[in-house]
């Protein structure tokens, strides 16, 4: 039995794209029925555009334009479904593969590129409304689950959740992976979240591999079952089913915002690419496995479903064209990115004046200026 045959999994679309909710999915069907055709088309468009961006970024890395790229290829449904369930006032804590999440919240894809190109350690300002309260990527696994729990504590202390007003109440959504779930910080985050009943959803994308280590090596029990030990409701969803991912996230976030405390979701998905452009998945996994997941491709599945509902060929062609333009724009703007002034290194190490940093900034400026013609 594969994890996807788990009788308790929430799934509404079969691998072939037919609407056939599992028993656990029945309670979510009204949430899906409430979606308009435009919503459904948006989900599809999000996934296609994200994949085109991901492919473009992977190519840019191969061409030496980026230091590294962690691909999101294959995980589009889990990310689109979950983030489309969030409200504008919610705070989002990604790890480092949530390109789909970040761009849907408004983060400029080139800001993500800047990070992976080595121009910045953050890339965007989470306090800028244009970025949809999306916090910067955290590369130390699991660290940010605690930041999310702390943010959630702040929401509780400031009574910014659980007031009964869904327009005002806020929640926190934190993304992490099966590998990160072995980190102590994730455990501590769940302890704090449960202790303070934070309005928080732990969204675990189980993409089956922590670089080369399979999830079976990391956990003898299904990861979503760990939440029970913290007194936190949890479930497992088919993460390659965008509708199911949306519905479970919607309910979990609504409940968290309303003051019911934290929730955990394990989305079963698969990264079709490498962990990052630095590794070679052929060394640690089989092509049979990759093909079995390719047959569950989230985009093909949703396309079949939309076709069954009468979406036109023109719509699909339009989305493809839009995705091409989007990726082309990323390429053009990436190639146009300049360097960074040396001074940047010394900026914002502290908010207040720090004499040692100022002294070294001045020393380097003088040193560079001492060369003929100056290099500073």
């Amino acid at each position, binding site marked *: 039995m594969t994890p996807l045959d788990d009788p308790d999994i929430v799934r509404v679309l079969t691998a072939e794209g037919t609407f056939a909710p599992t028993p656990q999915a029945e309670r979510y069907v009204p949430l899906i029925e409430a979606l308009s055709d435009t919503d459904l088309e948006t989900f599809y468009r999000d996934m296609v555009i994200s994949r085109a961006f991901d492919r473009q970024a992977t190519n840019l890395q191969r061409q030496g334009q980026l230091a590294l790229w962690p691909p999101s290829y294959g995980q589009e449904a889990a990310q689109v479904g979950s983030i489309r369930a969030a409200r504008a006032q919610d705070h989002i804590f990604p790890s480092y593969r949530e390109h789909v999440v970040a761009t849907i919240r408004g983060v400029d894809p080139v800001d993500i590129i800047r990070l992976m190109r080595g121009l*910045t*350690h*953050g890339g965007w*300002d*989470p*306090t*800028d409304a244009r970025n949809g309260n999306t*916090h*910067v990527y*955290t590369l*130390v696994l699991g*660290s940010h*689950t*605690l*930041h*999310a*729990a*702390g*943010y*959630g*504590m*702040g*929401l509780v*202390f*400031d009574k910014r959740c659980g007031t009964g007003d869904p327009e005002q109440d806020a929640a926190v959504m934190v993304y992490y992976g099966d590998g990160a779930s072995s980190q*102590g*910080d994730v455990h*501590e*985050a769940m*302890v*704090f979240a449960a*202790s303070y009943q934070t309005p928080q959803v732990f969204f675990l994308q189980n993409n089956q591999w922590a670089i080369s280590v399979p999830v079976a090596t990391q956990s003898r029990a299904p990861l979503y079952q760990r939440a029970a030990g913290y007194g936190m409701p949890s479930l497992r969803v088919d993460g390659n089913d965008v509708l199911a991912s949306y519905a479970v996230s919607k309910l979990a976030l609504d409940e968290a915002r309303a003051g019911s405390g934290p929730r955990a979701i394990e989305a079963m998905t698969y990264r079709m690419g490498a962990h990052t452009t630095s590794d070679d998945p052929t060394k640690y996994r089989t092509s049979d496995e990759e093909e079995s997941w390719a047959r569950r491709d989230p985009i093909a599945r949703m396309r079949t479903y939309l076709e069954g509902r009468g979406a036109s060929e023109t719509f699909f062609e339009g989305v493809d064209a839009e995705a091409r333009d989007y990726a082309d724009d990323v390429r053009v703007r990436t190639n146009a990115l300049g360097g960074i002034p040396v001074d940047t290194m010394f*900026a*914002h*190490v*502290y*908010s*207040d004046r*720090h*004499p*040692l*940093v100022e002294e070294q900034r001045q020393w380097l400026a003088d040193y560079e200026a001492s060369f003929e013609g100056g290099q500073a």
Partner: protein
Amino acid sequence: MSAEVLPFAKALSAGLAAAMDADDHVLLMGEDIGRLGGVFRVTEGLQARFGEQRVIDSPLAESGLVGTAIGLAMAGFRPVVEIQFDGFVFPAFDQITTQLAKFTNRHEGALQMPVVIRIPYGGHIGAVEHHQESPEAYFAHTPGLRVVSPASPNDAYWMIQDAIASPDPVIFLEPKAKYWLKGEVDTAERAMPLHASRRVRQGTDVTLVGHGAMVTTLLQAAALAEAEGTSCEVIDVRSLSPVDYGPILDSVRRTGRMVYAQEAPGFASVGSEIAATVMEKAFFALESPVLRVSGFDVPFPPAKLEGQFLPDADRILEAVDRALAY
């Protein structure tokens, strides 16, 4: 002037209360700090006064404490985290060094991290393993962190308020041997900024420099030296990052000799850094090399040996004699 005599721990407590009165988004987090008032009773009475959401008895998880404090700071709070003992800060070391220290830089200044980490540190209390350490160099070595250590009740009262007011993360090292030290606290007016070093005794022959609990030992050594006809100046560094070199250099230029004393192991230590900088900046004023008196480069020994491990007035005077012999 409104002065009263308070023990260090009470002065610190009063400083915390003053900061909490001034800003309702200042909150205290730590293990056993609420009902118990902390193992050193620094937060005694504060939960009763400010409530359970502002004086938080947290789960026993140091990484969780610092990690959630970071999230609270993002949400607009000014958390003050108490680490119960110096040796227990290491489970939080990752959150402090890879996250807390770097957030402002990673956000290009858009986000500030006004978090204070209070750590009781150092020896002299005869405790068991992991309860008497001097981790200051780890933090002073980390860009993005400010590191301070008050040595007197008046500094405890004011420096904690200044640390809380700082937009940058501050590692606030409390010399636990001094929690019961009494001194005059002027609650009306702060004497100096958070990052200033301070001359605490005037002298003409040798400059003695140190931080934390060692300041008291330096003063003892200076008194003994005086009886033997040697005049020692004593400087309390107060801030380990950034270091205020002004008063130190000024003094060394007059005395020509300097001894740095610290409990921490000497290798790659705060004393080493300050000694090297003084030699770079005041080389021609020096009559002898800057000498260091430190804990040995061994794990903090079992309590029955701490008398031999920790620098005392005699070891400082031995270094003073060596400096004068050049």
